[in-house]
């Protein structure tokens, strides 16, 4: 195994909402340019884990975490400029949240924050990101229309384009395909395989087969515990953990 610096490293990470423990003592590493899957039943702490990585815990009163959580070799709590940390990390939420802006402005939002002003440059970024999110052909004639007027699946792809627009080194996807049709999901999956060259992807998914298609390694979360981390195939052969195998084969609960 090559000893590259892990892009994400958590050591004994625990997450609590008030007294309620959402994740207890998870430890694993995510390597650069890896697609790292996270699967597990509802309420197992998957979303909570993603929230820690870009410090979204600040939005949720009562949410606390302890242990180590490093991004790019640096503890996420040590960042003095939280916003700079978040700019390194793109996030896609399970349900699309279109900002109340046009399609164009949604995608140009982050680049503008980063100080990009030139029209030509913005145009190029917007087009590139929309193409990557497999949305360009459908919206190229209505860039000025409100993002919220797109269909649910289109909005989700818009949020993917938006997440890519900040050129993140890490992309966090939380059940991105919930509102997307199967054909488009496949197209986005192909895009993710390409994006892997440029960034590290953490893919939380309820679709076991999606993890199997995409993820190099996959963690299995169960009731707030990280039960196993292994090459994805190992989940299906039972080499990882018998509970993981039960879950992926649908023999659960």
């Amino acid at each position: 195994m090559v000893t590259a610096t892990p892009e994400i490293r958590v050591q004994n990470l625990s997450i609590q909402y008030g007294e309620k423990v959402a994740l207890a003592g998870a430890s694993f590493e995510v390597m650069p340019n890896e697609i790292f899957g996270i699967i597990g039943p509802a309420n197992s702490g998957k979303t909570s884990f993603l929230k820690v990585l870009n410090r979204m815990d600040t939005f949720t009163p009562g949410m606390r975490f302890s242990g180590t959580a490093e991004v790019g070799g640096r503890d996420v709590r040590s960042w003095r400029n939280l916003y700079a940390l978040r700019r390194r990390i793109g996030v896609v939420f399970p349900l699309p949240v279109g900002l109340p802006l046009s399609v164009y402005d949604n995608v140009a939002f982050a680049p503008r924050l980063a100080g990009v002003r030139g029209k030509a440059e913005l145009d190029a970024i917007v087009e590139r990101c929309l193409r990557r999110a497999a949305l360009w052909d459908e919206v190229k004639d209505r860039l000025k229309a409100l993002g919220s007027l797109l269909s649910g699946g289109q909005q989700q792809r818009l949020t993917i384009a938006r997440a890519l627009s900040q050129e993140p080194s890490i992309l966090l996807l939380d059940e991105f395909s919930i509102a997307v049709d199967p054909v488009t999901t496949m197209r986005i999956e192909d895009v993710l395989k390409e994006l892997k060259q440029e960034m590290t992807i953490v893919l939380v998914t309820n679709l076991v087969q999606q993890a199997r298609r995409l993820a190099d390694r996959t963690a299995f979360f169960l009731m707030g515990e990280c039960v196993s981390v292994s090459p994805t195939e190992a989940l299906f052969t039972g080499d990882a953990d018998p509970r993981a195998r039960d879950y992926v084969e649908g023999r659960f609960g």
Partner: protein
Amino acid sequence: MTDRKADPAVDRRDVAWWSDKAVSVLVFLGGISAILFIIGIFVFITREGFGFGEHFKAGEIFGSTRWAPTSDSNPTYGILALVAGTASVTGLAMLIAVPFSLGAAIYIAEFAKGRTREVLKVLVEMLAAIPSVVWGFIGLTIMNPLIIQTFDVPIGLCVLNSGLILGLMAAPIMTTIAEDALKAVPDSYREAAEALGATRWQVTRRVVLPAARQGLLAAVLLGVGRGFGETMAVLMASGHSINLPTSPFDSVRALTATIAAELGETAVGSPHYQALFMLGILLFAVTFLINLAADLIVRGIRKG
């Protein structure tokens, strides 16, 4: 197989059906009565005021600063000074209240956390509940000597005094409404924008304020309406003397205060009485125009 025809006993008017009908009639009466009251008031004011028609000289009314309805030899009804009084006081009040209350609303809704926010909200609402006489009293007994001392002027009951008082009065209401408008913007927008690396202020300026602009505009216009229609505090703090103000230290008299101070002393149906009602029509019309403008602007925003 059972008979698939619906049982006729199922289709009957039950309690829920009747209470629905009853409630819809009640709320209809509530809604319609508001309209009837407005029309009634409008008709009453108009009838009383239009009797002034025979004394009506547009040139004098809108061109003269001399408001002397009780003069025996030469009663004049120029409202220019009164309009200027109301406009200057309201204008100054808005100059003070708009930035302060928008700032306060943004702080409470976007920046303050936990207890600070709750305490501030309650305080602002308490401020909004202070009766206008009390504000007038503050203008009279605190601001008046303060202005005289600070600026070395002979009298402290002036545009500055009443503008400040009116601004302070309007600010809490504007703050509350503006804050509601900001709170109505879904948190998911804020989270999405912050996840893109936007700072609090960037989120506020680029996402929240544009999304809340209708509500914010409503807040400002409501404040203007409040200032425009306020009577007691202005009566007490403005000096109540007829003047075209040329500096913030001039005493002025407002339209509303004029009506309040003089109506009790006029004989019903006299020209003076009718002239005061004419001022009422003017106030009514301007308020109506402000509301109409707000409505049109809001509609325009919705379309665009």
